[in-house]
């Protein structure tokens, strides 16, 4: 009996899917918060969210364009929507809130997240490992800018001018350092009283982790839900027949065979087709095995002998049977 045959269809996949969606939404909530210098809650603004939505939309259309499928029920539809919003929140959370930095980041994210996926997209857009890594790096960049800005140091970094930096004259203060990558408070979308750096960055980091893990978990849970669904359909057959079907079409091949995301009726037709094809192939193979001539002598060395021996064993088993 295959592993799938003993799989309980108790909705565990659905629970995981719902949990992943809760994580994505909670992460999005945290990524939208910042705490100002006086400890008050302030929003991170709609501009990064809108740009995140744009990236998510383009990524969704490109990913779903070739191999995508529409969600089937309310659960998978909500989950697909959550995936879209998860990408929106993640991108909106890591983008620098304004200025030229933001547009460069936008271009890079569009390029990375909008590439076509090798796997079929049956449950909404997904972010791969490379995409999440890039988003993580962008979060680090944003945190660095926020750290600089929280110290009212409105640049990426400064470089001391050799020798000049050491001269003990106050009137050359403005010439001691070179500024690299200047930005403004408006670009950072800070509240007027500044930002509580430790608390805000904790919120963003927790939000990013929740959102990223939620997206990853949602992909796995969506597959689990589909596996449970296909398994439940096969279990409609008498137990012996279901066992044979699951042996002929192992669970590991279900996604590659395009079972996931199909409506009930089309799924049944697809399974029927695959089973018929494999039974046919099995019969052809058996016919070929019976009719093949065992030409090489039994005692010949190497590869031909190995093949002959295997065929002979099969025939012997068949004759015994």
């Amino acid at each position, binding site marked *: 009996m295959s592993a799938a045959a003993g799989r309980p269809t108790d909705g565990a996949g659905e629970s995981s899917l719902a949990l992943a969606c809760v994580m994505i939404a909670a992460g999005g909530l945290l990524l939208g918060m910042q705490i100002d210098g006086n400890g008050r*809650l302030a929003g991170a603004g709609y501009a990064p969210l809108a740009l995140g939505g744009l990236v998510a939309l383009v990524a969704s259309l490109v990913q779903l364009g070739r191999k995508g499928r529409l969600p089937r029920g309310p*659960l998978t539809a909500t989950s697909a929507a959550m995936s879209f919003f998860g990408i929106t929140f993640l991108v909106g959370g890591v983008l620098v809130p304004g200025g030229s930095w933001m547009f460069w980041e936008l271009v890079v994210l569009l390029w990375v997240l909008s590439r076509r996926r090798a796997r079929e997209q049956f449950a909404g857009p997904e972010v791969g490992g490379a995409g999440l890594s890039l988003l993580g790096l962008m979060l680090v960049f944003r945190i660095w800018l926020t750290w600089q800005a929280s110290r*009212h140091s409105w640049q990426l970094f400064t470089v001391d001018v050799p020798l000049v930096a050491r001269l003990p004259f106050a009137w050359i203060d403005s010439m001691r350092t070179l500024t690299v990558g200047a930005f403004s408070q408006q670009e950072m979308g800070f509240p007027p*009283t500044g930002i509580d750096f430790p608390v805000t960055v904790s919120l963003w980091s927790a939000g990013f982790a929740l959102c990223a893990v939620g997206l990853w978990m949602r992909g796995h849970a969506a597959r689990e839900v589909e596996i449970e669904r296909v398994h439940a*359909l096969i279990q409609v057959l008498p137990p012996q027949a279901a066992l044979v079907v699951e042996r002929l079409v192992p669970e590991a091949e279900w996604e590659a065979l395009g079972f996931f995301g199909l409506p009930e009726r089309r799924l049944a037709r697809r399974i029927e087709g695959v089973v018929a094809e494999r039974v046919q192939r099995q019969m052809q193979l058996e016919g070929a095995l019976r009719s093949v001539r065992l030409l090489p002598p039994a005692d010949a060395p190497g590869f031909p002998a190995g093949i002959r021996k295997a065929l002979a064993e099969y025939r012997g088993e068949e004759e015994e049977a």
Partner: protein
Amino acid sequence: MNRGGARGPAPAMMALSVLLLLAGVWVRGIQVRLPPAPADRLQSGPRIAEPMQLLSRGAAHRYPELGDWVSEGARARWRTASAFAFELAGCPPLKTWLDGRDGQRIERLLADLRAGTREDAFAALVVIFQLARSTEWRPGVGGRAEHAEALGGLLADWLRGRAEGGADDALLHEPALAAALLYGRAMHVAWNAPLVGYNTASFERARGVLATLCGVGRRERTAFGRELAARYGRVFAALDATEPARFFAPFRAECELLFPELDGACSR
């Protein structure tokens, strides 16, 4: 067989996720606006108009009118002592002058005024600013820091007593912030006074006083710290600095913009 309908806790969790999603969109719209400065709020009744004029170079034109605002018990002494400060000539070194008879009278008057009404406290600050303008507190060739330290001491005493209460006071709000800027400027001069090296003690003292006033390093900023952060963010951010040059630089820059004549060189 499950035909797309969710079972168990999944529907409730999905509903929760939708609520969180809506909250995540809503929270981004929360805007924190800077509250209006106390001086900008509508006030009723008589008040001292444009108090910052009395801290600027033009204070000499208006200081007599403060006599009407000072408490009756201190009014006579105020008229005499303020005349000392505003008619002071010759640019004496601050500490040397304070040690004289007139200087001691002014110090006693300042102590009384600091503990008095808000108008009294303001009058005390006007005298301190005038002293900073009409006396010398630069270190000079001898690298002497005591004059700047004396000015810092007068300002620190005033700030400790009145800054926190003045943060939300229409009369004292801006003067208190200006006093903090001048305090940082004076302590910068004291820190930088020696010909070789620096007065580390001046830096430590300035940092301690300002950190206490603003609530730096505590869980919550003080009201004065909030106002300083709102109006002079660069100055407030510098309070965390461990390098003295970085600590004092914004005080110096802001003070040079607001009170260019208050550099320790007597402007008279």
